[in-house]
């Protein structure tokens, strides 16, 4: 999914995407460069906060991870709130850089572990960033895939729709449908997502865990069993 990406950036509060980017960097021997916001060691953005956005605007960032409090079937993401705006039922942290990076980074990978109808809704309550734009809008970037704890969707930019690409071990199409509030495409025979190779799992729990613990010490300890 990150094949051929030269520069992957990972935003705030994103330990799992951070691990993925570091893993891509490790297995490509540095052919892929991972930039982890908030890290001193894996942060080649040494010129302050604006640099990530400037570099993305120039096309120097190939892949980025985003998430959403709500995500809908057209790929719209909502990081702001559920319910009426501006006085909502539930307030989320905010849009961060999504309203910009979703337009400028060619391959945006949406990542959300919780796969439920609360998250994957028919129509988001607030559009932090739209999944697609009319043709006159300058938009080199957009959604590429959506990864959840149940499955992997790929995004079709012509149809503005997700297509179910693979199921995690033990997950059925029905289970995904039951827990997804939006309609999506799929073939008759959906492939299972292949489990990660053992050497990568090992890498994740050793070298990658040590690296990510600089930025996400709580996560490294609780989810990867890392202690320094």
């Amino acid at each position: 999914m990150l094949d051929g990406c030269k520069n992957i950036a990972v935003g705030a509060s994103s330990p799992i995407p951070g691990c993925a980017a570091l893993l891509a960097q490790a297995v490509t021997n540095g052919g892929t460069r991972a930039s982890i916001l908030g890290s001193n060691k894996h942060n080649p953005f040494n010129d302050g906060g604006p640099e990530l956005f400037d570099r993305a605007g120039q096309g120097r960032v190939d892949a980025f991870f985003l998430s959403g409090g709500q995500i809908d079937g057209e790929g719209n993401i909502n990081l702001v709130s559920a319910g009426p705006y501006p006085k909502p039922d539930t307030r989320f942290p905010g849009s961060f850089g999504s309203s910009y990076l979703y337009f400028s980074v060619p391959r945006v990978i949406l990542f959300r572990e919780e796969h439920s109808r609360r998250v994957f809704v028919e129509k988001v309550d607030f559009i932090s960033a739209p999944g697609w734009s009319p043709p006159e809008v300058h938009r080199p970037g957009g959604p590429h895939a959506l990864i959840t704890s149940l499955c992997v969707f790929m995004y079709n930019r012509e149809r503005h729709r997700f297509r179910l690409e693979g199921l995690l071990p033990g997950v059925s199409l029905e289970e995904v449908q039951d827990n997804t509030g939006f309609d999506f495409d799929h073939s008759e025979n959906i492939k299972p997502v292949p489990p990660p190779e053992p050497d990568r799992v090992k890498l994740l729990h050793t070298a990658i865990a040590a690296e990510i613990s600089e930025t996400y010490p709580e996560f490294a300890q609780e989810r990867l069993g890392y202690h320094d």
Partner: protein
Amino acid sequence: MSIPKSYLSIDQIASRIPDGALIGVPKDDGGVSMAITRALIRRKARDLRLLTVPVSSVQADMLIGAGCVSKIETSGVSLGEFGAAPNFRRAVEHGKIAIHDATCPALYAELQASEKGVPFMPLRGILGSDILANRADWKTINNPMADVQDPIVLLPARRPDFALFHARYGDKHGNIWVSGRRECILLAHASAQTFASVEEIWDGNLLEDERMVAGTIPPVYVSGVAHAPKGAWPLALSGCYDQDGDHLKMYVEAAKSEEAFAEYINSQILTSESTA
């Protein structure tokens, strides 16, 4: 190094920031002056308008919880690994503060316009978002350089009354040093006045050391400096100390109810001199 005579105390700085002021503050790894934040709470500041550059964590949450803030322009308030910002969340859900939702590069662009003295800056993206739909002050025009239809958003210059942050070093000449934290340099350039707390006193002139000059903000931008060791606590100061995870966990728990948070304010800020 002794403290330079021109330096103010943290509380003097807080007293020079009037109620109602528009205050620009950096993100939580950018040198947050928690020391001045606590002093503002001690002086019971009211109606502050916060501009987070571009996001905030415990600083915004604490000021909101203490009733100091009437309005916030931000791309996000969160305590990251420690969860949502409880006071921020509650205040927005209850409609107690006005919120201008933004996105990170738009806030930088608003400050860069102010830094350059131009009325606006263009930015790609944002089109079709509800961020844009809710911002009457952001304008969409057709790119005048293009022969075809090419909509683009313009952001207005925004000039905070005060930039407020914690820097690694200050010297007796009024210079402060923020290393590669260009968001602090941008914030100082863009704001009418800058107040900073500093972790350590630099012996010499930061402008005359070729290794320090690139990260230095000269006194033409700086209205006052206070010496405040551990001034970013419980947040980290890069190169000096890590964040205090235990305290932040305790903070988040306390902030989940108004009663527990009142007790936090009382025990940790109002009656505690050590955190000055």
